[in-house]
Every structure is written in C-alpha cells, then in structure tokens.
C-alpha cells in the first residue's frame, strides 16, 4: 500500500513570509497527525484530526499556525507569518480508525522548513 505522502520535501522562506505544507495519508486512515520536529528534539504533536474534525490542537500556536482537513482525507498545515524558530521538520502521520491505542502511526518523509 502507498505510504503517507508529503510535499514539498524542502522549503526555504524568509521570516514573516507564509508557507503551506500538504499531506495525503494512507488510504482509509481516519486519524491524521501533524508533528513538529526541531533539530535535536523528538517530534511534538501540533494537531490531530479524526476524519475532518480536530481532536487535539492544544499545542498548535494558533496565532500563526492553521491546519485543515477538508473532506477527511488530505490535509494542509499553514504558517503565517513564519518566525526563525519555526525552522524544523514537519511530519505528517496517520493511523486507521478504531484501534487508536495499540496501532502504530505511519509517518511521511517530512517537510524540512528553513526560515531565514
């Protein structure tokens, strides 16, 4: 089966610019996650969707970050305006519905964002 697809792979922008990332989860996976991985740290959850509804966005900096999952399939994560500290790898992951506890998450290759 096809894995989690993310684009772009790399992005360099200047601070105060905007940027958007795209994720297409594994077909049939109801739960979608966006994680931020800063160099030297483990991935940190930004937002979690169940179908097209938000389950957890408590760690999403809502003054500059936004995300949507229209139609419950693919998702976009946007940063506007970007700050230097947003430089990180943004990982998208998905899991099937109904087995949230014991099912591993499947990750995309990530988008490496550099803000200069």
């Amino acid at each position: 089966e096809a894995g989690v697809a993310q684009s772009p792979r790399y992005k360099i922008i200047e601070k105060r610019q905007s940027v958007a990332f795209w994720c297409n989860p594994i077909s049939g996976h109801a739960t979608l996650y966006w994680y931020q991985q800063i160099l030297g740290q483990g991935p940190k959850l930004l937002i979690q969707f169940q179908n097209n509804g938000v389950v957890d966005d408590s760690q999403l900096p809502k003054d500059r970050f936004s995300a949507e999952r229209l139609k419950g399939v693919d998702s976009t994560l946007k940063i506007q305006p970007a700050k230097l500290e947003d430089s990180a790898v943004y990982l998208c992951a998905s899991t099937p519905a109904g087995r949230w506890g014991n099912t591993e998450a499947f990750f995309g290759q990530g988008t490496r964002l550099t803000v200069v």
Partner: protein
Amino acid sequence: AQSVAQPEDQVNVAEGNPLTVKCTYSVSGNPYLFWYVQYPNRGLQFLLKYITGDNLVKGSYGFEAEFNKSQTSFHLKKPSALVSDSALYFCAVRVGQAGTALIFGKGTTLSVSS
C-alpha cells in the same frame, strides 16, 4: 503528564557487539510503547511495539525490546549490531484509546563502527 525519557544522546558500539538504547516512561495508566528509527532526511519508521502480554517484543531488522513495568522501562536491544543500524532512534508512548497521539522522547543517536 505523560512523558518519555531517553537518557543517552548518543550510543556508540562496535559492529558485532550487542547494543542497548534506553527508554523510560512516566504515565498514568497502562502504556502502549513504541520504537521508531529515523535515517537522515527520512521520516520515522516503525520498529516494534509493546501492547500487552510477553514482556520481550521482537521487531524489524533483528531488534527487540524488553518491557519492565516495575522499572517503567522499555529498552531497545539487538544481539549483534550492524553499521547499517546507525541512525536516530525514538521511543514513544501512548496511553488510552481516546485518540491520544504518541508522545516521543528526544531521541538517541546510535553509531556503529566497523
């Protein structure tokens, strides 16, 4: 609050020697525990998981992990390391089935020398 600790930033072993990458967790409730590996410029790849039952879990590429409830640990092990095992390893935990996301440790870099 749930948390995962990986006390070592880096582990160095010689090829052919056994390796251990340490992980401890702090949760309220019964944990589901996972190990992931990340190669340069790649996403996270699932290695193995502990759900319930046998405390010794076997996973991909010859890796295994031992769940120890009394010590709240889930150390990753391999009897004989390969140079190709060199990568960044993450331990993660999930508690409950209410759609909670994985919580990750900060990662341990494994370096296997030939």
